């Protein structure tokens, strides 16, 4: 990949645009996961400035639906850049590379790319993982708060509002994920809510937090596995990856004290 200092202005803009493309399953940008293998500006015969991007994934058998989503989201993000001509996104070394790359080149869309295997669209899939990302983000922010405020227990979190959370990355990430789902982001909004924004009842909020924790652990664990596999498959890829929190920081004793009835 072109080193940062050697990037053209368009390439830097393209990199930033790719930074908005998320791996929905891992809830992380493809740039920080090391999935962007190459990014190059070239001047076409007609003088237009085009972009050529290569993406790579941890295995040949990563889910084709997520692979397609990341590729088509990348193409959309790049095509929206001012002053860009042709945009070519290619997925390398995947079992469906040929299929996906043909579909991308022809702007065939999801159904046009996968034919009979596609039923309607991938929006429901995207929504499923946005919801998981929101649940995990809520758990991170609440666990951070519980760690800082020893007088609070897990059964008190139904009363926590956005304004009560510690300021910082965890709170910001939660607000972004709430916004992505169309949930309230005002200071008075309760944090422990379901996928639709309905507050979780105090009687089950401890269990809700516990379940949210398993969602967060699942997402974080998958991310670590996928990052490791990418570096095994493409030696040196780890240098393109931004650090990710282990997600395993200690939590206070009072989180264990009461099991759900």
């Amino acid at each position, binding site marked *: 990949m072109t080193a940062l200092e050697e990037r053209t202005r368009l390439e830097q803009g393209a990199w930033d645009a790719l930074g908005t493309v998320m791996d929905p399953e891992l809830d992380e940008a493809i740039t920080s996961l090391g999935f962007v293998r190459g990014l190059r500006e070239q001047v076409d015969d007609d003088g237009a400035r085009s972009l050529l991007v290569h993406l790579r994934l*941890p295995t040949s058998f990563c889910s084709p639906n997520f692979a397609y989503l990341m590729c088509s989201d990348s193409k959309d993000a790049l095509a929206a850049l001012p002053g860009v001509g042709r945009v070519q996104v290619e997925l390398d070394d995947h*079992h469906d590379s040929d299929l996906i790359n043909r579909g991308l080149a022809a702007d065939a869309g999801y159904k046009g790319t996968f034919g009979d*295997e596609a039923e309607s669209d991938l929006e429901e899939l995207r929504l499923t993982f946005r919801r998981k990302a929101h649940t995990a983000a809520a758990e991170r922010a609440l666990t951070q708060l519980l760690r800082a405020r020893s007088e609070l227990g897990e059964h008190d979190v139904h009363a926590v509002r956005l304004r009560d959370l510690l300021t910082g990355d965890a709170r910001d990430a939660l607000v972004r994920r709430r916004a992505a789902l169309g949930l309230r982001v005002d200071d008075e909004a309760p944090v422990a809510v379901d996928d639709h924004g309905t507050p979780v009842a105090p009687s089950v909020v401890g269990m809700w937090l516990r379940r949210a924790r398993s969602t967060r652990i*699942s997402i974080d664990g998958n991310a670590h596995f996928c990052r490791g*596999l990418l570096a095994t498959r493409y030696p040196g890829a780890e240098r393109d990856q931004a650090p990710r929190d282990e997600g*395993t920081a200690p939590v206070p004793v009072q989180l264990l004290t009461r099991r759900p009835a």
Partner: protein
Amino acid sequence: MYSKDGTDYFILDAHIALWDARPENLRNVHGKQFIDCFYDYHRNLSPESEQWSYDQYLYYSDRLMKDLFEDGYVDHAIFQPAILGEFYKNGFGQTEEAFALAQAHPDKLTYNHAFDPRFEAKGLEQLRRDAERMDLKGVKLYTAEWQGDSRGYKLTDPWSRRYLEACLELGIKNIHVHKGPTIRPLDRDAFDVADIDAVASDYTDLNFVVEHCGLPRLEDFCWIATQEPNVYAGLAVAMPFIHTRPRYFAQIIGELMYWMGDTRIFFSSDYAIWTPKWLVERFVDFQVPEDMTDYAQLTTDTKKRILGLNAAALYDIPVPEHLQVAPEPAAVPEPAVSVAEPRAEGKAEMAGMA
């Protein structure tokens, strides 16, 4: 058997394979991609001293018995084959070779077979013949297996149900399920375990062992396991994190223990992706880090159950009396939701929490 600090452990490896991915057996590029993916799993998560050469990894029948029973402390192991007929000329898992080994060493090896409901009536006939010839106690299903234009199926498909009903009738009570990435339509999450939930509710006399404990959907798996007492967790793929990411491994085990207790979790090396020797040694030495106070510490009895006693009970494999654990109900961590509760009630209680 493994012994450490005066304690003896009965070892049942609930997921092993004998595959052939040598070039002459590859049907197409996907066979190569598949074994390369496995080899990356192996290289990424094995300690350096335990890594095999690529050529050795393609086929290894000469060392299987030694790796498992001489070096690996394993008392009994269960074959869980993947057929992958679209990728390999003679299949990936070597049915006849594995079955012959199991016949030669019935005290050490159990052969589980595979079926594919998309073969419909013809496959069902074959399953009946196989069940009789192989005296099957279990099957391994890979729902993302490609076949013709199809790249996967669900357990709730009508033909899947007919096969499960045949399993009931034929005494094949253990259904091992491995979820994979391709399932039609691609609109939805292929790793979703909801179909396992449905059939576990409908076929309560069958046991559903979810391989790699539902990873990459651990949370969804834990959720169904709290509600379905006939759902089990196989630790294939999860085990080797004990080396590369012990804190993550602690979280996986901790979550499983919290949601389902310690009697429905099975040790699996996923041999030959990983070898059992180092996994058994590390697991016996393993403890949840003290600062991770949201999880219970693993007791010796818990380790004994996971390493062998749980799966031995499911497969009626005899375990010497001195390797059993004394019944100590108080020491058994209770699952978060008691499976004794009526299922419908349990589900209603959680309604609105998703």
